[in-house]
């Protein structure tokens, strides 16, 4: 058949009177689940994802046909090699991207699934952490013949670190252990023990065979002893991060919108909690507050907005709040942090250096780091920390940071959405580390030993002698100080900036 004839045929097929099904097909799906798969090729990762796509998704027919026609068989069976569906994602096309994550999308009848795939090779810590930071649920894959291994421990530790709350242990290759319940129960028990030290809300083990499809989409007839859900049933019921966001309201301001008349809206996405018209919101950095009078979107004003919604808030007073502020309700604010401690995954090939200039990126703020100190490295197998002064790619480091000015930050374990951080190289702009705040302090701290301290007096008498004590000038003072520090660091000097005196805002410092 000619290509042209094929087109004609397909077109005829496609446009057959299927209009009756339109309302059903265009129905929005009930949500999005981001799914991370952890494991090595040996554990059958590609086969499992391929099997999910084959059995549960809306694959195009031409993709199915490619698999059928290829004649490639899964090892030792007469079944098609489903891992082919991942070609171009996992095996092929190594692009040399340092952090290498592939995204794949499929729909079941009720949900959008996004598969986040990161390679399982040796340098996987930073890859996996990066991928896991987007995941609602992670599938940790193990081979039924070998069970929970050291690698499984590292995987679960990374998932916990970046805030994944739902974990599935996929005990694969059950066909190779004669579908044995005893084998599965032993692995399940090991997994339970392992998960106890983490903060998962749900950790479920499922026995399956990716090659034969048992308990992937279809319940297994080989394991009548297993009465739990299939993998896809379980995944479809797993809530997403955004739907499980906490109840404390946070709204990082991205930008200020003006319509040229009287509208001045603070634009952003509600990251947790909700807000309604009439509520009072406060910017913890400036201590300015106002009442929400309008929640604007192009589709119409809203009475309220909750986690995940992108809106613009108009307040009753024109307070000087701009990008970087995190709005909250007055009695549950983020900390106006001067000092933080955080767990970071070091992402860059370039190791940490005391003489590099770094910036800290929060939800919508970018703050100069005035002093940074590695305290310890974390062992992912034992979760023990050992003192250290240096770190490099794939390390998990506990890092203490003093900021050039205050920034609105939450402790990650309390409000994860506004407790995430990136460390940015101030010269190249590269993202060198990603992490989560473990403690935040509104008090500034003395510079660590061995640093040249840029004293305020020194700066005030020379470089900054044209500046007053107004808030604008105080900002400019710190901006210049930070620029000087960046230049000095580029010249190889370890520099810290003497912190500014606390602003007297009439608040109890204990708040």
């Amino acid at each position, binding site marked *: 058949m000619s290509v*042209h004839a094929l*087109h*004609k045929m*397909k*077109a005829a097929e*496609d*446009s057959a009177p299927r*209009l009756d*099904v*339109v309302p059903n097909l*265009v129905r*929005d*799906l*009930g*949500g*999005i689940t981001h799914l991370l798969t952890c494991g090595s090729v040996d554990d059958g990762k590609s086969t499992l994802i391929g099997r999910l796509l084959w059995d549960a998704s809306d694959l*195009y*027919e*031409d993709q199915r046909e490619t698999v059928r026609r290829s004649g490639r068989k899964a090892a030792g069976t007469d079944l098609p090699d489903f891992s082919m569906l991942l*070609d*171009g*994602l996992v095996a092929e*096309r190594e*692009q*040399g*991207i*340092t*952090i290498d994550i*592939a*995204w*794949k*999308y499929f*729909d079941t009848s009720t949900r*959008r699934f*996004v598969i986040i795939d990161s390679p399982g090779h040796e340098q996987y810590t930073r890859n996996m952490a*990066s991928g896991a*930071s987007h995941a609602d649920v992670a599938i940790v894959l193990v081979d039924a013949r070998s069970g929970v291994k050291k690698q499984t421990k590292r995987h679960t530790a990374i998932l916990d670190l970046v805030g994944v709350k739902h974990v599935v242990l996929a005990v694969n290759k059950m066909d190779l252990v004669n579908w044995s319940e005893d084998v599965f129960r032993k692995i399940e028990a090991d997994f339970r023990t392992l998960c106890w030290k983490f903060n998962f809300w749900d950790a479920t083990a499922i026995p399956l065979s990716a090659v034969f499809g048992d308990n992937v989409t279809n319940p297994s007839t080989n394991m009548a002893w297993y009465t739990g859900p299939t993998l896809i049933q379980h995944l479809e019921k797993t809530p997403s991060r*955004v739907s499980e966001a906490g109840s404390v309201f946070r709204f990082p301001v*991205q*930008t200020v*919108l*003006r*319509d*040229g008349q009287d509208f001045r809206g603070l*634009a952003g*996405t509600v990251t947790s909690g909700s807000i309604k018209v009439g509520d009072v919101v406060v910017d913890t950095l400036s201590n300015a507050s106002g009442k929400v009078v309008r929640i604007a979107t*192009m589709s119409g004003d809203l009475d309220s907005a*909750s986690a*995940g*919604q*992108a809106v613009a808030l108009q307040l009753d007073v024109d307070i000087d709040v701009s990008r970087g502020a995190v709005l909250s309700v007055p009695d549950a604010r983020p900390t106006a942090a001067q000092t933080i401690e955080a767990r970071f995954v070091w992402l860059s090939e370039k190791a940490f250096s005391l003489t590099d200039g770094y910036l800290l*990126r929060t*939800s*919508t703020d970018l703050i100069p780091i005035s002093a940074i100190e590695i305290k310890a490295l974390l062992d992912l197998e034992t979760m023990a920390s050992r003192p250290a002064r240096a770190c490099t790619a794939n390390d998990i480091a506990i890092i203490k940071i003093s900021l050039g000015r205050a920034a609105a930050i939450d402790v990650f374990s309390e409000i994860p959405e506004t407790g*995430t951080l*990136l460390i940015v190289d101030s*010269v190249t*702009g590269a*993202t060198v580390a*990603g992490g989560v705040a473990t403690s935040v302090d509104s008090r500034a701290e003395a510079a660590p030993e061995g640093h040249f301290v840029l004293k305020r007096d020194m700066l005030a008498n020379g470089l900054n002698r044209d500046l007053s004590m107004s808030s604008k000038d105080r900002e400019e003072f710190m901006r210049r100080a930070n620029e000087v520090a960046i230049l000095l660091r580029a010249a190889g000097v370890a520099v810290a900036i003497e912190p500014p005196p606390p602003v007297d805002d009439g608040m109890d410092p204990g708040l």
Partner: protein
Amino acid sequence: MTASPSHLDLLEAESIHIFREAAAQFRKPVMLYSIGKDSTVLLHLARKAFFPAPLPFPLLHIDTTWKFREMIAFRDRTARELGLDLIVYTNHDGIKRGINPIDHAPSIHTDVLKTQALKQALDKYGFDAGFGGARRDEEASRAKERVFSFRAAGHRWDPRKQRPEMWNLLNGRLGTGETVRVFPMSNWTEKDVWRYILREKLEVVPLYFAAERPTIVRDGQILMQDDDRLQPRAGEKVEMRKIRFRTLGDYPLTAAVESEADTIEAVVAETLNAQTSERQGRLIDHDQAGAMEKKKQEGYF
């Protein structure tokens, strides 16, 4: 509280978040507007992101002079009705050299009139960020693309300079000479684009709907004779067929499908039932193995 947000609500909010981050972080952004359905959705999302303020950046259309006439009419009407700041740029040097998609290999035409033209325009106006409608589901080589995709001086895509992206934190701090392409629709699929067009009642170029059009069949593909620059070769003839397009580009490089779908609902039904992925209709992708990958390295989207 209302029902939990649907997947389109979530995708829309994510795109708005990305638009706002980029507009706030970059000095002089521009939206790369290609007139097709993805651009239509991209433009709608941008308007939502900054409502009620006007768009804080202009639109840039790279005109190869080979677009369907209906596309140009649609472009100009859209810009007029929405009060957009539209920049149209053509690589006149390439036109003067006689480069065209009929006599030259698609790869040469695309390089000169699209890739080079885009670089020239970005340099001419000094844009440091360009919004594009590319999606990760389009092609395997795009599956690893970042939301903020960095370009070294000369617009080259260097895999080692791509930044990891974690949580919803977008780091747009540029190094010397760097620019960035921003993809707010990274996580949308082709089906989502159509679903959203239907949901938001967006108007698209009429070429997406089936109509009787003059066609030439060449190398097994149905081409539309949009003007007299495309002439039948020996053994070919111009025939009327009821066709529509799944993607839009330069008309001699864009294959049509025969279809009866002449309403938005019918097109959506056809797309959602489609048995083949959309890029089959785009001839430049078949030009050489790993075509998209190569074009990306060279600075094409």
